[in-house]
Each structure stands twice: as C-alpha cells, then as structure tokens.
C-alpha cells in the first residue's frame, strides 16, 4: 500500500518535472524570430492584420520587419539589402507580402532575386477547399510541389537566325533528386498517402525522363507512400473533372506554375491560396501569391486570407500545430459565417472588421485565457 502510494507520488513528481522542463525549454526557445517583409500595395495592411491575429492567439513569435528593395551591390550585381539577408539567415523563417516589380527598372523581379539569394528550390502550395467560399469544386485537398530553380524558367534564350528563337529547358539530376526528396518527406510529415509525378516524358524523353527516373529512385526509399506517374495532359483533364483523386503532386517548373495556378483557381483564386518556398540551408519563406492591388491599397478593403493561411502554413512548419489549427479554424469559421466578408469574397466588410472578427473567434477558442 505504501509502496504503490510512493510509486504514484514518484510518477506525479516525475511528470511535473518533465512538464516543467518542457515548459522551460519552450520559454528557453521562447519567442521564435520571424522575418516579416510587408511588401507593397496592400502588403502593409494585410501584414498588420496577420500580426494582430497572431497577438490575439498568443503565438510565441517575434516579428522582425525588413524591407526588400533591390540595391546594387559591389560588382554591379543586383541584390537584396544586407540587413534583410542577415535577418533571414538568422531566423530561417520568413513571411512575405506581395512585392511589385517595376517595369523597366533594370533589375530582375524581386521574387526572382529572393529565390536566387536563398536558393528556394521548392514551392509548396496546399489547395484545400474553403467551406464558406463556394466554388464549383468542393472537397479539393491536394498539394502541388514545384521545382523552383531550373526547368523552363532557366532564362536561357538565343536568337539563332532572325526569326528563329530557341529557349533552353534545363533539367539536372541534382535538382530533380532534391525536389523529389522534399516531396516525399513532406508527404510523410503531413500524413499524405501518395505522391504523383507529373511529366511529359513521351515527348521530352531525356529531360522529363531524367526527372521521372530520379523520382522513381527516391520513391524506393519511401515505401510507405504510394508513388504514381501521370502525363501532364491527363492530370489537367482529370483535375477539372474530379480533383479529389489527387494528393501530392511533384513536377518541374513550368508544369508546376500552370498546375499550381489551376489548383488555386479550383479553390477560389489567388486571394485565398497560401504558398511556401523552401530553400537550402533550412530557410523557408511563406508568402501570399496575389498581386499588390495598388487600386485598393490603403483603403482597408484588402483580404488578408492568403497571407494568413500562409502564416498558418509557417506555424505548421515551425511545429506550432495547436496555434496553427486555432487560427485556421477561426479563419474558416469567419468565412463560413458570411457575416464579415471582404469585397472579393462577396461581402462588404472592411479588412479591419474581418481581422477583428477572426481575433474574437481565436480568443473564444482559447477559452478566454
């Protein structure tokens, strides 16, 4: 009797010690730093909305705001400001709003610069149907993983003779292997059942054939995940008829660009689609993929959903799942309720009202403490 009492006391003490050590490790880890790039146009207001919602949800995140405008570095090459680069390298996680690319500015697009600077090789876009926002397609739940560095977007073009232009599509073993490995790891970490490689190897035998071979090789190491391959045209055909048959899709750059936008269209457009870019060295930048919408900038009309869902993706990446689930539930409930919807979702609420409603729901979910 005394022995069992002693044992239960001991287990309680051990449990308390373990819990407190976990808590202290959290507080030791404490606030994780995230580099925030508000962007242009509606960027600042939607970033402010996300910060407010995170505060309401008591997410342990410290924001470091940085600006990325292209500056000419030593040697004449365009680069992002060094303090932005240093902040990102330190924090490893970034959240980015829409950036505008001024035409004829002489420098490449900002997104391209960021991609090159941090070697962001994978673009991940989970497309999940939003319950409150009706589209002809319901029950969409798929993820597109797109190789982001090479392929058709290598930018190598020549004029051979006047009137004949050649563009080069580059596929390398290294990049294909890297993206395939990321796709399978993502599937495993997020409890996904299958990975489908999208290709056009019947026409582009060597290039897409190489990509496919690498995917098959990597699939050997991930026997718990089903691997299939499908032609690009078959995927497009089936996607518009029945998108529920797809799970995780991995593909080279151009097909990824087209398919990820196609899937975004299925769930309601770029205003509600999250997106994340994974780089080498553990850097991950999450972003909203819509434009800067200069016509509604500063008028409190913007829809922060895309940036918010990207921030939720970021929380999952950081392992803060409870907070992520809370914010996502609050957001989807608000949209489903239809009482506070921004103009693009079919309502006439202001951005601040929409944000406040989500904050209120988050606090309610928290139980008020």
């Amino acid at each position: 009797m005394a022995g069992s009492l002693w044992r239960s006391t001991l287990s309680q003490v051990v449990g308390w010690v373990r819990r407190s050590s976990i808590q202290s490790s959290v507080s030791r880890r404490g606030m994780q730093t995230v580099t925030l790039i508000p962007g242009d146009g509606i960027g600042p207001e939607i970033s402010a909305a996300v910060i407010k919602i995170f505060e309401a949800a008591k997410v342990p995140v410290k924001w470091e705001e940085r600006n990325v405008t292209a500056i000419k570095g030593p040697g004449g090459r365009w680069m992002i400001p060094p303090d932005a680069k240093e902040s990102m390298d330190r924090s490893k996680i970034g959240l980015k709003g829409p950036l505008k690319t001024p035409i004829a500015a002489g420098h490449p697009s900002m997104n391209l610069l960021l991609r090159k600077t941090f070697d962001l090789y994978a673009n991940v876009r989970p497309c999940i149907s939003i319950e409150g926002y009706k589209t002809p397609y319901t029950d969409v739940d798929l993820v597109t993983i797109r190789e982001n560095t090479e392929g058709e977007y290598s930018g190598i073009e020549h004029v051979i003779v006047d009137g004949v232009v050649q563009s080069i599509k580059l596929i390398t073993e290294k990049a294909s292997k890297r993206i395939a490995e990321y796709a399978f790891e993502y599937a495993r970490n997020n409890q996904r059942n299958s990975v489908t490689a999208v290709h056009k190897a019947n026409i582009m035998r060597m290039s897409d054939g190489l990509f496919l071979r690498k995917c098959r090789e990597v699939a050997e190491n991930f026997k718990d995940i089903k691997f299939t391959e499908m032609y690009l045209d078959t995927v497009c055909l089936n996607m518009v008829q029945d998108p529920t048959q797809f799970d995780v899709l991995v593909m080279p750059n151009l097909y990824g660009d087209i398919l990820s936008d196609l899937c975004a269209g299925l769930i309601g457009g770029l205003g509600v689609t999250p997106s994340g870019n994974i780089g080498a060295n553990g850097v991950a930048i999450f972003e909203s993929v819509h434009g800067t919408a200069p016509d509604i900038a500063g008028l409190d009309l913007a829809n922060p959903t895309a940036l918010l869902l990207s921030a939720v993706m970021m929380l999952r990446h950081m392992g803060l799942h409870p907070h992520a689930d809370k914010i996502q539930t609050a957001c989807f409930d608000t949209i489903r309720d239809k009482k506070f919807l921004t103009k693009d979702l079919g309502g006439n609420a202001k951005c601040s009202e929409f944000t406040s409603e989500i904050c209120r729901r988050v606090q309610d979910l928290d139980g008020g403490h």
Partner: protein
Amino acid sequence: MASHSAVLSMSRLLSPFRGGLLGNPTKVFGTTLTSHRNKTLLTGDNIPPPAKYGGRHTVTLIPGDGIGPELLNHVREVFRFSCVPVDFEVVHVNSALETDSDMDNAITAIRRNGVALKGNIETKHTLPPSVKSRNNVLRTSLDLYANVMHCQSLPGVQTRHKNIDIIIIRENTEGEYSSLEHESVSGVVECLKIITRNNSLRIADYAFRLAREKGRRRVTAVHKANIMKLGDGLFLQCCREVASGYPEITFDSMIVDNTTMQLVSKPQQFDVMVMPNLYGNVVSNVCAGLVGGPGLVPGANYGQAYAVFETATRNTGKSIADKNIANPTAMLLASCMMLDHLQLYDYASLIRNAVLTTMNETRLHTADLGGQGTTSEVVQSIMRIIQSKGQLISEF
C-alpha cells in the same frame, strides 16, 4: 495569296529536315487549281481537292493502340450502314518496334490519300530516346501545323460549367515538341524549345481566318512572355502583327497560368484561343475536361495539303481497351469533321445529328459520363436514328 506562298517556300527552306523532301506534285498544282473553286472551307485554301475515284473517297485509317481500333471499327460500321461513299485504307503501326518503317508506310499512305482518321499511337518511353513519339513524327512530317479543337457544352451532359463555346487553335509542329534534347554534361539535360517567326505567323493567320469565317469576335493569345521573353515574345509579336489586319476581331493576350485559373472559374469569357504547342496541350485538356471529358471532343490537324482527324485529347485509353465501355462520341464526331472536309456535308450532318441526339438521351451515356451504356449500345442507337431519317441517295 502571294505572301502565303512566300511564307510557305521560306518555311520549306528553313526546315529541310521536314518530310517534304519527297515533294508532292499535287501541292504545286493545287494552289493554282483551288483558287478557281469557291472554297468556303477555311482549310481548303491551299489543300488540293480530295481524290475521288468512281465517286468514292479513299481515306487512310490508322487504328493505333488502346481504344483506337475498336472505336474506328464502330466508325466503319456506321459509315457502312449510312452508305457513306468512303473507303478506308487501313495502315497498322506497331508501337513496340524500334524501326520507323511502319510510320513511313503510314505517312506515304496519308500523302497518297490526303486525308486520314487515326487513333492514338502509344509512346513507350522505356525505349531509347532516339525513338520519337510516333504521333509527333506524323504531325511534323506532314507539316500539320494547326490543331483545331472546338469545345462546346452539350445539353445532355452534366458539367460544373455551362455555356462553354471555345475554339482552341494550337501550333502543332514546333515549340516544346521539337524533340531536340541532349545531355551536355552527365546529369544535366537540355531540351530546346524552338519558336520561329514563320510558324507563328502561319498559326496566327490561321486563327484569325478561322475566327473571321466562323463569325467570332475575340481571339486570345496564350503565352508566358514575362518569363520566356524572346520565345513567347516572338509568338506574341507575330499574333499582334496578324491581328492588325483583322480590325473587326478583338485581340488580347493572357499568361498561361492566369488562363488556366480563369478557365476553371469563368470559362465563358473565352472565344477563340491561339497558342504554342505545350500550352495548347494543357489548355485543350482543361477545356475538354470542362465540357465533359475526353470521350466527347473531336480534334483535327490541318496542314497545307493534308488533314488528319482524331480525338482532341489524344488518349490511348489502354485501361479501358476492349471492354466495350469507351465513349465513341469523340471519334464519330471526328469522322463527321472529316466528312465535312471531304465536302460530304449531308452525310456529316446526318451522323452528327444522330450522335448528338443519342447524347441527349441520358440513359445512353457511357461510363465516363456517369451512365451505364456500353459502346455498342450507343452505336446501335446512333444507327437506329440514322435509319429513321431515311437512307440518303449518294451523290453522283
């Protein structure tokens, strides 16, 4: 007209590797002869009159793989039943062989007859890269530069989007499908995408002429010129040049990823679309999916002198082959397009109306449309409707 022939001869100069080396005497005579006939068919501008021996046309038939052979058998059945004055010259192509002799025979047969109806030939990509896709070889050898697909919502088919009516014109010979690849360093493969001014002008011209003939208001060029500035930039520039000659038709352009997004949300905004090869592949498959699937839409490949008809999405359908569940609509509508091309308009409308009437009887949908009918049941129903319209007296 003179500019057309100038463009023609230029393209032949620049592409000596095309199959046109053998030359075709009817092509030379064709351009002068046909100008005297009143050709309302757009495709008939430079195509010589289809051969007619004893009042009957001969058409090359390539069964292909998968569901091709059974669907083409049904086409022959319907033609025999309706007393269509067309004889088929069947040419088999074995996709497992590594040699090209099969394809050469097929191409010669099409050159002889001028018109072909084909199923899709499977491309086994386990074979070495030197074995090119046979469908692609056929298209480039015969210079079938325009792939035309008309996507229309059919009243008897349940789809998420209604009232779609889009004509897609896709450049069929160059672009990403040039099959020029090499491995310069081990582990690094380069694939060349070729865009030429001549072919871009040619396809843009085709698109605008077709739009004008069909009374269409708007042509949209689909491209990715923000990334591929030189390649797609050249294509877009050619389209703009041609557009300036057609002031009654509105011309605009759209980037391909935005296009696919718009297609799944608001496809009714599109009228005629013109684009290079790969985007054409994507967009045509998306549109086919929107109107009800690969079993419904016919496609046509037109060249200067030849025309080949097939299903629009070019599926082999290996998994449903020989099971009597394939949808014969696409292949039958393609054969009607072929009959229009041969100027057998009455037969074409007869068969087309029968097919569309059967489509609207929902009981007779095949499995891909969610019904329970078999292929043979659908074909029987079509033949019954043809019989009820009375036999046509064939034209002499």
